[in-house]
């Protein structure tokens, strides 16, 4: 790999992320309230929680895009702070190792063509031209999107956008992949394509953290499930154990056992 930028040496501990008593609030609305979590290298974890439980905020903290108002977030022992990420060597090394796929692909796809989109990350990391061309072509072929390379990302279908968004992060082959609702708003075929993509990328050494409230994909994308509610962890166990605990899932607003839909109000006569 031709990294021409300065690099930072992270320690080689098996502890990938350590989130300790993290607090975060948007304006006055608390998103994380004393969340503590440890993630080890090679783990595949699902962050489960209803809308507003703090999953997306946690992922942004782990990607060094937001910073806790109290508590710490550490990656391989190094605290993720604004000052640390202002440092070129630290930022370059961190971005090389951790990638985040956003929930809304429209926010993530901002280049004029699919090819430029996938090449964006490697270019920022200072890879050589030859290596970028080789990696981008290989990644596009892997996700079955070579025929889309000259298309404008905003003109793709929802499933294609999501696959390109994932490819634009996986092209740098990060050690840790953070995914925010990877299969949200996708049709069944696109959902299974995304899940297969993730399975084929992970060779057992990569760490994958997926935030989702879609329980049907959890057993396929994670061995460990962390349930979040109101910005803190309420359960942390194997995916099988969490998925069997109906009371826990219902309390976390992840399932609704009531079968009858509420009645619509009577039609108003004009």
């Amino acid at each position, binding site marked *: 790999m031709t990294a021409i930028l300065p690099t930072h040496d992270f320690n080689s501990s098996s502890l990938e992320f350590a989130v300790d008593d993290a607090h975060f609030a948007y304006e006055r609305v608390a998103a994380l309230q004393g969340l503590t979590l440890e993630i080890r290298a090679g783990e595949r974890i699902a962050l489960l929680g209803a809308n507003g439980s703090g999953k997306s905020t946690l992922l*942004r903290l782990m*990607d060094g*895009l937001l910073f806790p108002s109290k508590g710490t977030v550490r990656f391989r022992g190094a605290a993720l702070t604004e000052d640390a990420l202002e440092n*070129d060597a630290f*930022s*370059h090394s961190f*971005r*090389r190792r951790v*990638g*985040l796929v*956003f929930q*809304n692909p*429209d*926010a*993530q*796809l*901002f*280049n*004029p*063509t699919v090819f*430029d989109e996938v*090449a*964006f*990350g490697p*270019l*920022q*990391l*200072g890879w050589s*031209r030859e290596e*970028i*061309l080789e990696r981008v072509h290989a990644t596009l072929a892997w996700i079955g999107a070579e025929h889309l390379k000259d298309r*404008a990302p*905003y003109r793709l279908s929802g499933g294609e956008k999501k696959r390109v968004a994932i490819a*634009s*992060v996986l092209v*740098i082959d990060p050690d840790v992949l953070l995914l925010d609702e990877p299969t949200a708003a996708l049709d069944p075929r696109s959902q299974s394509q995304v899940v297969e993509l993730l399975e084929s990328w992970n060779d057992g050494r990569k760490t994958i953290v997926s935030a989702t409230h879609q329980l049907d994909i959890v057993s396929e994308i994670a061995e460990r499930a962390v349930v979040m509610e109101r910005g803190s962890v309420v359960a942390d166990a194997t995916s099988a154990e969490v998925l069997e605990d109906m009371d826990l899932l219902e309390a976390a607003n992840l399932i609704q056992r009531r079968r009858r839909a509420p009645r619509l109000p009577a039609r108003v006569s004009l």
Partner: protein
Amino acid sequence: MSKGVIAKTLHEFTDALERTLVSEDSAHGHGLLQSLDPRVKLVGLLALVVAASLSRKLSVLGVLFALGIVLALASRLSPFSLARTVWLVAFGFTCMIAGPAVFLVPGQVLYQLPQGSLAISEQGLHGALLLIVRVETAMTLSALLVLTTPWMQLLKALRALAAPVEVIALLAMTHRYIVLLMETANAMFESRQSRMVGRLNGREQRRLMVNTGGVLLGKTMEMGNQVFQAMQSRGFRGEVKLLTDFRLRTQDYVAIPGFAIAVAAAILAGR
């Protein structure tokens, strides 16, 4: 269902904006300006814009405008497309500004209006014409730059000419983000249209515009944050990096003195 004025205008605005911002097709074409190094093109065309702004003679502005049309044709850009997206818009706005000067600037009366004391003066007409042609010329030359240069190359050229990193980061985000914002605005109006029976009166339309503006502002900030975070997440730190490195070629060495002569001649003749 017939669309309201606001929704229709917005829809057309979105189309126009998309055509302009995502005009990568013409930017990747095989015309004269597309073949030039973006730095040469940027400096050359902007220098011509400055020359047009300094010129006080209609004849010089006319020649610069004609030069713009020749460059557009040589770059395989359709004059009809330019007329629709640039000339008509510039003409409309400039007329609004320059129109009153035709009557307000004192001088030799060319035509006295039948009623009232208003008269068209020669000096007022000349001043208004000068402004209109100047704006049309400057807009044409600027449009040539945007339509014949891929956006990221344009940003890289700006950076190469020492534009601040913050400005480049802002422009890089704006490119994608404006289209998204317009799409959102359009979707909001379409959603409103789909639930609306009949037409809104003027007051209701104004209220709708104000409400939509407020919601859009909120969405603007949210989407702006997300786009910037997505760029940061993949290592963006304000520098525009491209696979293609800028390199001056034969046509650039011909274009540099060509631009210099045109600019110098326009400034000297236009004084």
